[in-house]
């Protein structure tokens, strides 16, 4: 094996290892959030605003 072939093989192998590690890190280390982003569309049912002056039945 010539020196040039050896260096080429070394670079290829190194790249594959680095790509593999970065992929692994990306998948195992989650993105961290404190503030969540608003989802524009509500997934549930919406109702029109009605009389709000009545005391609520819920505790608190």
């Amino acid at each position, binding site marked *: 094996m010539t020196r040039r072939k050896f260096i080429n093989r070394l670079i290829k192998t190194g790249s594959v290892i680095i790509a593999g590690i970065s992929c692994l890190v*990306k*998948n195992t280390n*989650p*993105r*961290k*959030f*404190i*503030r*969540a*982003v*608003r*989802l524009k569309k*509500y*997934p*549930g*049912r*919406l*109702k*029109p*605003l009605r009389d*709000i*002056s*009545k*005391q*609520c039945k*819920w*505790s*608190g």
Partner: protein
Amino acid sequence: MKVQCELCPKMCLIGPGQSGECRVRINIDGVLRTVVYGYPCSINIDPIEKKPLYHFLPGTPILSIATVGCNLHCENCQNWEISQANPEDANISAYSCPPDKLVKLTRDNNCPSLAYTYTDPIAYYEYTYDTAKLARSAGIRNVLVTAGYINEQPWKKLLKYIDAANIDLKGITDDFYRRICSATLKPVQNALILAKASGILVEVTNLIIPTLNDKPEQIHQLAQWIKANLGGETPLHFSGFYPRYKMRHLPPTSLKTLDTARQIAMSEGLDYVYIGNLLSRQGSNTYCPGCKGMLIERSGFTILKNRLKDGHCPDCGKEIYGVWK
């Protein structure tokens, strides 16, 4: 890709398309999204005494909101139909009410304050934060009714815009929090201390559940902790339990148990101890810790008499802890 929610001590690791324990913070394409922002399931005007807050603008109406979802799963939850619901559940619908509309609604209905309550404002943190910020700039006071299960950084950030809070101290042992609430005690105690240190008005609620947290030694311990860490002037509400959700097998709390708890807490040096969810004449009124004279007389959520003079006892002149105007 998984995301981690760092809002509360549960630190949920959420897979794609999944939600955290609160059911309302969802991982969508690797981004944490809040699905209830601007969509309260409940908007009502309550008397402020219902929160309960007895030392904050007594006798005033407070616009109160909640979205579905909660980061705790207390087996005794009184509002489980909304706190343990998913936004997409067919039997629970919501209003479209972004922060600016909510502030306008509060002002139009002549409410001096806005409460984030019923479920837990920690679950709808971003909605609470943005609304509170807007309300503060409009001269409206902000009130939290919460279990206080939140991490330090977001809690401190939110407290900047809060004027008063009623925070649950559901029990005084970690075991109680783990078994009944699927939470832990330490973060709640930390949230209480931080809230009090931030200068906002803090009142504490303890719901007494027969056989689970009603032993006199537990009440002594709870009152001692409040006195040592929050101060003897911190109002404490003992609330009566009603069989609900997963605890229908236990009896309601008796007035005698609540009265005993009140006596114990006062003997430990707490100045203002109240009884809630059951009618109690003495346990509803505010008395001066100096001369023992009656200052505010209540019946249910109604103020019958308020003798305070600029936040002081009219008889002995003692300053009474609270925000009175």
